[in-house]
């Protein structure tokens, strides 16, 4: 059968494709491009913070840099990356389908995403935005002199791409599963993409309307969040976080799904507690909608609301911890190969656990008063989003790379890169926990002398991390052209995607597969 890569090589055959695999590749290039932009901003910020005085950029530029970094990384990299790249490519294969339910909508979502991205880039090129990625009013609506409207419009547009992807995946999982593939036979990666899609569909519209209200206020000077006219700036924060907290779970749940696949495959064991794993994914998605108030503990929210939000936030740690324990239990007495994907998965488990536990610290009302808006928060969410999601993404990328490219990557170099990324990450962000605990506020480009040493360590770590991220970019590109052929199933993995050729054929399967057993059916050791 013709592989999807060989099905046509003209520009048109890519830009007008309806094939979920090609659309995944389009997304791969797009999000990698945005990642590089966001990473450049991060490099400049860490460079500035190498010395206590502000001597590389002005404070205005620094504000624009962290806004650019936040906006690009959250909306144009972390939120789309696993669903649109790995999800698009693997989901239909993993459920034995020929494509997603609405291929045209899938392609449209990419065009919408690119349009939103171009608007955001326009805002950046013409001077940037200095509101932070959260666009808090009244600063964003009244006082900021930057390109808030264009940037917000870009995010608004990109939101529709998210919604389209979510609708597509929900319908695909409901309606296009292969015969015999019942709900509790689905791979956990599919469960996680499904749960993520539900969040995308239900949370994104709230962000959309919030941004519309903010833009109306900025454009027409009307008072929806303006205290002069009776509006309440805190309402903006409530609406914003009603999206943006669940968005954190859009950024982590697919990672959890990927890690479940990697752990079972390289321990050669069935996942421990499959049903509990599936249910905990759904309950994290559900609870994620009820915790947004923990971002407003010190913003004049009522203390009773704070208590409830604090308790609900603690509850998220229960299903999260179940997942961590079950991954470890899966590894226990497994026949483990420390292949690159598993190294990333282990990195994920370690970093996610640290990120999760510090999240519990932040969800504690009294502790949050001290830690709010310090580097402790920055370190916490980078442990989840970068230590968690980016590790899982890279692990999944290596795991499914043979299916995507038909080739193997250089194993030793890849293992080295995984270790470098893990070390570089910890070196960058662990000092920030201490800095935050000692009271260094986030979003400033100068700091007192006593924070110097830890900031130097953090910047050195960022350099190591940067090298770590560039390595896969280089050797995966090399492998795409020169790597050894992989064959249909190089890992001897279960899962329908491994039962077809590599790279995946244009129409996925010769015949629709029929599923007769549970997932991860590895032979007993």
């Amino acid at each position, binding site marked *: 059968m013709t592989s999807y890569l060989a099905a046509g090589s003209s520009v048109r055959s890519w830009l007008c494709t309806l094939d979920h695999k090609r659309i995944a590749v389009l997304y791969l290039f797009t999000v990698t491009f945005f990642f590089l932009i966001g990473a450049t901003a991060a490099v400049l910020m860490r460079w500035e913070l190498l010395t206590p005085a502000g001597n590389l950029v002005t404070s205005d530029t620094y504000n624009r840099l962290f806004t650019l970094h936040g906006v690009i990384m959250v909306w144009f990299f972390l939120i789309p990356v696993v669903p649109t790249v790995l999800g698009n490519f693997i989901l239909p294969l993993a459920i034995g389908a020929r494509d997603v339910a609405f291929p*045209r909508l899938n392609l449209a979502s990419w065009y919408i995403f690119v349009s939103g991205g171009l608007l955001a880039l326009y805002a950046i090129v013409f001077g940037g935005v200095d509101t932070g990625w959260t666009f808090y009013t009244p600063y964003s609506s009244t006082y900021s002199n930057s390109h808030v409207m264009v940037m917000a419009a870009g995010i608004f547009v990109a939101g529709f791409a998210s919604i389209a992807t979510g*609708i597509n995946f929900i319908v695909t999982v*409901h309606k296009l599963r292969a015969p015999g593939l019942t709900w509790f036979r689905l791979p956990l990666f599919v469960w996680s993409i499904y749960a993520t899609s539900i969040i995308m*569909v239900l949370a994104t519209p709230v962000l959309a309307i919030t941004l*519309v209200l903010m833009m109306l206020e900025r454009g*027409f000077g009307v*008072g929806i969040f303006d205290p002069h*006219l009776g509006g309440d700036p805190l*309402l903006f924060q409530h609406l914003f976080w009603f999206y943006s907290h669940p968005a954190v779970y859009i950024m982590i749940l697919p990672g959890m799904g990927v890690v479940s696949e990697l752990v079972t495959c390289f321990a050669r064991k069935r996942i421990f507690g499959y049903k509990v794993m599936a249910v905990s994914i759904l309950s994290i998605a559900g609870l994620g909608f009820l915790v947004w108030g923990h971002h407003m503990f010190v913003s004049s929210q009522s203390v009773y609301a704070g208590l409830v939000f604090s308790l609900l936030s603690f509850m998220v740690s229960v299903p999260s911890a179940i997942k961590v324990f079950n991954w470890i239990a899966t590894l226990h007495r497994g026949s483990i190969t420390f292949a690159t994907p598993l190294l990333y998965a282990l990195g994920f488990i370690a970093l996610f656990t640290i990120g999760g536990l510090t999240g519990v610290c932040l969800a504690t009302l009294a502790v949050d008063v001290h830690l709010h808006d310090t580097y402790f928060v920055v370190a916490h969410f980078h442990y989840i989003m970068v230590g968690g999601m980016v590790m899982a993404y890279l692990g999944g990328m290596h795991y499914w790379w043979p299916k995507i490219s038909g080739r193997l990557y250089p194993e030793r170099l890849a293992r080295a890169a995984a270790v470098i990324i893990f070390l570089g990450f910890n070196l960058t962000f662990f000092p920030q926990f201490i800095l935050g605990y000692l009271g260094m506020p986030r979003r400033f480009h100068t700091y007192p002398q006593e924070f110097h040493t830890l900031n130097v360590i953090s910047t050195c770590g960022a350099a190591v991390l940067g090298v770590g991220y560039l390595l896969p970019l280089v050797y995966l590109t090399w492998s795409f052209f020169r790597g050894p052929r992989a064959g249909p199933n190089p890992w001897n993995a279960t899962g329908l995607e491994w039962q077809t050729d590599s790279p995946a054929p244009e129409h996925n399967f010769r015949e629709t597969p029929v599923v007769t057993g549970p997932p991860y059916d590895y032979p007993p050791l």
Partner: protein
Amino acid sequence: MAATTPFRSATQRESANQLGLWTLIATEVLFFGGLFTAYVVYRFTYPAAFAAGSHRLEFWYGTINTAVLLTSSLCMAVGDVMIKHDRRRALQLCLLATALLGLLFLGIKFSEYYHMYREQLVPGINYRAEGPPQMQLFILLYFIMTGLHALHMLIGLGALTWLGWLNHRGRFSSTGHQPVVMVGLYWHFIDCVWVFLYPLLYLIPHLT
């Protein structure tokens, strides 16, 4: 590119389309949900200003519009029954009636906007009303909520035109008319949103 269908049967395709539309409606509910939240928060904070604002709206415009829109939904529902009995011409008449009533709704709505513009009641453009300052919040929410609703009506009218075209080409029958069901669902959803908007915006002073 030649489209290869991901579906194994027409039934599977139809049930997927149906679920897709319901998921879209779920998104829409949350989209309006943000506005309803803002409304509820401010209504409880400034009940008197909201009542005063509601007094400035044109009660009869809103009431007549409610009747117009509910009737258009009825026509849509009747059209759905007609095509189930293979009555294509009757469906065409129903679609026409639905669309005309929808247009009438928008006409009344825009003349109401114009009326308010004449009375200098448009926030951000010419708002100069006497009364409590928070009244502007109410009027603003009125414009955003009904404006967004009107935008959805326009999309619905586009979809109705498309249905009329397909029906004119003889594409529907008692066994194959899913687009009619789907556009109908969407139209009824827009109708439902109005059913909530009408009392929240027009009936407040009549309740207190």
